[in-house]
């Protein structure tokens, strides 16, 4: 799935990384605990989260993720946008809640990368 489709499925607002919309991603994960993302995630390219602080971007960067979606209309701070820009990470924000956002993406064919 292209990042563009994620934006469409979630009716998300683009924040930064418009130029990466045609990048291909194969799996995603959702969590508000960066500890868990660092411990359990493997090769997921997209992070859905309701957490807003700079460590969300650094965690994504350390895990080589390329897109972060903020749920429940959360908006990243200017610092976070700058960090994401430097790291080449696309940011977007959706009104949908975590459960629905994950469900919609999963139903559209974006799995969690397990047993694929």
């Amino acid at each position, binding site marked *: 799935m292209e990042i563009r489709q994620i934006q469409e499925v979630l009716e998300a607002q683009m924040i930064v990384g418009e130029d990466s919309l045609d990048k291909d991603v194969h799996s995603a994960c959702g969590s508000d605990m960066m*500890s868990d993302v*660092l*411990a359990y995630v493997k090769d997921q390219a997209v992070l859905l989260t309701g*957490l807003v602080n*700079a*460590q969300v971007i*650094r965690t994504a*960067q*350390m895990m080589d993720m390329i897109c972060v979606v903020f749920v429940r209309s959360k908006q990243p701070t200017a610092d976070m946008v700058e960090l994401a820009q430097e*790291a080449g990470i696309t940011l977007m924000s959706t009104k949908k809640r975590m459960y629905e956002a994950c469900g919609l993406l999963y139903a559209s064919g974006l799995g969690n990368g397990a047993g694929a």
Partner: protein
Amino acid sequence: MSEEALRFHFDVDGDDFTSAGQASVQVKKLLRELGVSTDVIRRVSIAMYEGEINMVIHAGGGKADVIVDETAVTIVLTDEGPGIPNIAQAMQEGYSTAPDNVRSLGFGAGMGLPNMKRYTDHMEIESQLGQGTVITMRVDL
């Protein structure tokens, strides 16, 4: 014949949660420039990032030294924090003394130390109560 090891030093500010992880980001860039494999880079990045966050959350900051030689990347994290009273307990998944405010920042699941061990080929913790902690991790190339 053998090339000299490359050494990098970073100070990790303990007063600023926002800047935690900056050293790990820089190391990631440096390793990429050195042409290290993506797998090794990711393992080093995650292990060092967890360690850096720990120094900020639990020890009021510290220092990070990264040594790259022909065979491995070695990360040495040194702090002058409270020390770890029971290392075996701290190494258990889920054990955390992090306060609620840390948890609301997305950390404090007690996964960092076991994660650091899992992602590296060797890890050693030396800790003195009231004096500090030194964690040495090695990822083989």
